[in-house]
Structures are given as C-alpha cells and as structure tokens.
C-alpha cells in the first residue's frame, strides 16, 4: 500500500461575483507514484480543482475544505508559502504549450534554468543533466535545444514541457488536458510520455475529458459532473463496471464506443438547481 500524497476533502469552490459554487464537496486522494485522473465534460469543474490544488485560482474564486499535501493543508497557506512549493514539490503542466514557453529564449535554456536556479547545479554539469532528458523525449540537444519556441511544432513544444517536468524536483505533477487538440498519433505518444513520468517515480493528477488517458495511465479516477464527483474508484473498476448512469453515458459517448449522446434525462436529474 503506497502512501497518500494528496488528500482533498470536501473541497468547494465559490465564485464571489457569480454567487455560484462551481465545485461542491469534492473528495479524493492521490497515492504516491500513481496516477489519479479527474474526468468530466467541459464546465464540470475539474480544471478548477486542479487550480485549487496548485493555488492559482483566479481572484474571484475561493476554496473551502481541505487540500492536504504531505499533511500540509494547501488551502491555509499564504501565496508566498504556496509559491515556495512550486517546482520543488508541486508542478502544473499547462494545457497550452504554445504560450507556456518564453518566445525569446532558446528551449534548452528554458529547461536548463530549472537545473541551474531551482536545483542549483553548476553550469559545467548542465549538459550532462540535460542530455538524458532530451534523448528520453527523442529530442536532439544540439539541434532542437538551440531552437526558439516559434520554430517548434506543437508536439515538440509539448515534449519540451515534459522535459521541464522531468527537470523539476517536484514529485507531484498536475497535468491539465494533456491530449487537447492533438491528433491520434501525437495523442498516443503524449499519453505514453505521461506513463514515463510515472515510471520515473512522479505522482500524477491528470485532468482530462478523454477516458482513454485514464485507462492508459491506470491508478484511480473520479468522474465529475456539474461540480461534483459522481463516481470514483480504480480505473479498471470505474471503466469496466460503471455504476452511475452518467459514467455509463460518458463511456458510451467516447469515439471508440460510437459516440452515443448521453441521455438528456440523466443530465437533467443531476443538474444543480438554479438559485433564485
């Protein structure tokens, strides 16, 4: 039995401006060295949960409940204290590789700065540290490394982001929509590379609408709808014998299962009543 790395208990997120609760009473835990996948449709609140875990919810949103990372409640930490965890403990792999890389810096420097300034390695050691990471990701250190982000394809940029996630000392990585906008081939290699992160001992919290990602990463998963978790458990259990009608609908709506639309009655029954 592996240790619990992150435990989220009764997490609710309130919007001060809209007076709504886009996330209500979400609880789950992530085991060390395993993947936990949050699945749901757009607007189900899964990205807000990821942002709450990383402490970068936008100003009008407030989180209640507990997010315990290695026993420390992240909800109670100040911005400065949370910032100290970034890169060293927690890392968010953004869903937009196009805008996540600095357009004026060679990609090799964007990976190298992690070794230099976060891990504190000497300049002479950098090449020796970067080479295995780049070769792991099928990138040439001397060619691709010398390019600027605007000279890279979308898939290469994503690999550079993965290189950064391998470079940071953080053991817990939140991955937001890793397969968004990718074709089938790129999607397969992106998921394969996420599995590699698991093999390197990292723990993943993956946010996706793609059930296939959960299947390939394994571990545990939770299905979210309208701000609540409707079903959770081990990936095999949830995907092979779904209990909740929404989960069954979501599995049926996947491209490999014929994209059957989810029954409107099921959605209507679960919808949060509008507050007057």
């Amino acid at each position, binding site marked *: 039995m592996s240790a619990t790395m992150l435990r989220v208990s009764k997490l609710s997120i309130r919007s001060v401006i809209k007076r709504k609760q886009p996330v209500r009473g979400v609880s789950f835990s992530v085991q060390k060295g395993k993947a936990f996948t949050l699945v749901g449709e757009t607007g189900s609140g899964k990205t807000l949960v990821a942002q709450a875990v*990383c402490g*970068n919810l936008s100003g009008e949103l407030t989180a209640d409940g507990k997010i315990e990372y290695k026993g420390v409640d992240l909800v109670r930490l100040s911005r400065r204290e949370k*910032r100290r965890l*970034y*890169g*060293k403990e927690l*890392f*968010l792999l*953004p869903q*937009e590789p196009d*805008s*996540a*890389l*600095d*357009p*004026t*810096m060679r990609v090799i420097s964007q990976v190298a*700065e*992690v070794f230099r*300034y*976060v891990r504190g390695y000497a300049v002479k050691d950098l090449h020796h540290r970067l080479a295995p990471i780049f070769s792991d990701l099928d990138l040439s250190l001397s060619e691709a490394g010398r390019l*600027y*982000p*605007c*000279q890279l394809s979308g898939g290469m940029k994503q690999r550079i982001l993965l290189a*950064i996630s391998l470079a*940071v*000392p*953080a053991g817990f990585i939140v991955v937001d929509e890793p397969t968004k906008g990718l074709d089938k081939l790129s999607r397969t290699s992106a998921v394969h590379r996420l599995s590699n992160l698991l093999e390197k001992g990292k723990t993943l919290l993956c946010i996706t609408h793609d059930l296939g990602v959960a299947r390939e990463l394994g571990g545990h998963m939770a299905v979210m709808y309208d701000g609540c978790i409707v079903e959770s458990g081990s990936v095999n259990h949830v995907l092979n014998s779904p209990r909740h009608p929404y989960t069954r609908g979501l599995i049926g709506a996947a491209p490999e299962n014929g994209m059957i639309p989810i029954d409107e009655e099921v959605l209507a029954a679960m919808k949060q009543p509008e507050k007057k």
Partner: protein
Amino acid sequence: MEQIVRSICRHLFQGICVALIVATLGFVAVNLTRGDTALDVAIARYSEDLTDAAVVEQIRREEGLDRPLAMQYFQWVARVITFDLGRSLVSREQVTGLLAHHFYYTFLLAATATTVSILIALPWGILCGVYPGGIVDTVSSMICSALVSVPQFVIGLLLILSLSIKLHWLPVAGFFSPAHLVIPAITLGIGLAAVSSRVIATSLADVRGALFYRFGAMKGLSPFKVLTAHGMRNAAIPVITYIGVQAAHLLDGVVVVETLFAWPGIGKLLLDSVLARDIPVIQGACLLIGLLYVTVNITVDMICFALDPCRRNYQTTS
C-alpha cells in the same frame, strides 16, 4: 541575416525618399508664404536699418533668387546628388558645416536627455509594472499625467528659477561647459521619463500576465529570476521601439527647449532659418532630419531583431 539586410535597404530607400520629399515640401512652403525671400535675407544679413532696394536686388541677383522657382529647385537637387547642400543665404557658410555644428549640440542634448529619462523611467516603470494597480502605480500614474500635461518651458523655467537663480548651482542658458547641459537635459528627460515609465509599466504588466511568465514561477524560479530571465527581455521590445521614436523626435531638435536655453541645436537653427527664409539651410535641415529618422529606425529594428527571435526567423519586418 538576409532579412535584416533587406530591411535595412528598404528603410534606407524609404528614408532617402522621405527626406527628399520633406526637403521639397520645405522649399515649396517657404516660397508659397507671402513675402520676398531676398528682402528677408537682406534684413537678416544687414539688419532692417541698412537694407534698401539696391541691397535687396543685389542679393536677388547674386543668390539666383530671380531665376524661376523650378530652376532653383532642380539646381539644388543637382547639387545634393554631389553631396553639396550649398551655402546659407544669410551667413554665407557652407550648409553642411552649419548643420554639423548645430547637430553636435542637438546630439549632445538628445543623448543626455535620453540617458536621464531612461535612468528615471527604468526603475520607476519596473516598480509600477511589478505591482500594477498598487499604490505606487496609482500615484505614479497621476504624477505622470501631471508631468505630461505641464508644458516643457514651465518645467524649464522652474528648474532655472530654483537651480540657477535661487541656488546658483547651475548656469542659466547657452553652452560653454558641461554644466550648461544639466538643466536642459533634465527638463527634457523628466517629460520623456513620465511617458516612457508608463510604457515600461504597461509592457511589463502585460508580460507578467502571460502564461510563460507564470509558468516560470511554477518551475520554482524566484520572483527576481522570473523577472530578469523572462520579464525584462519580453517587455523590452515595445519599450525600445518607443524610446527610438522619442530619440528620433529629440534629434529633430526641440525648438521650445533649445530656444528657452539658447541652445545652439538643429531646432533653433531651423527656426532662425525659417524666419530669415534661408532656403538652403531649411532644405538641408529637412534632409538631415529625414536621414536621422531612418538611422534611428534601422537601429531600433536591429535591436528588436536581436531581441525577438520569432521576428528574426519568420516574419518580414514592416
């Protein structure tokens, strides 16, 4: 590299065309205004008391002002091709020498004023950009609006009153020593810094909002490292373009400040030449200003090429 050469050639060609058009417009404008060029030149040369009809006619004949305007213009163009800008109608000095003399002073003032403005604007703008909407930013914004609204001669007069007349620290006007440079440079520098600090603040605030900047923090870099590694370089591109425009404007000569401080720069030369209808000097100054704009544009373009690799690699510059 090929693109930068192409960009320089295009700017040079554009600049030479613009300079020639401006010089032509200068010639047309002076001749369109009411009055007699020969009379104005005679007054400027010998003063009103010593000017009579014979002197005016003599100047008209000697300087070729009795020839048709088209012929005067094409003679000037033919001389320009051989790099001869002619002589001043008033002082009879070579226009090239006259421009070189006055440009030296304009350049000295422009370079010092730009340095003063950067020294003020850089820390001020960065502070406001790092804490946008904070107390420093709000107060700065108000101070900048006030400084931009105050005419330069008011700032100049206040500085003269306080630093020269009351405290006797610095000389009032003219140029005889480096100390004479201080008040005009501060007068110009303060106004420029007020605007460029806002440009720096806005540019930096925009960059701080970008995902790559926030991602820098997520990597575990310290706020200072994220600012220096990812903030400054990206924020610098619009700032350098703006400072380039400011510098080009300063090199034109700043008529108000040059007149206020009796500064012997291009602006003052141009003003005196217009009043005396000294056509060769006006045309020469217009040519010089046009070429200066090109030089500044090319310099700014090259710096931006160096800073912005995407532009360097893919886009053609506009």
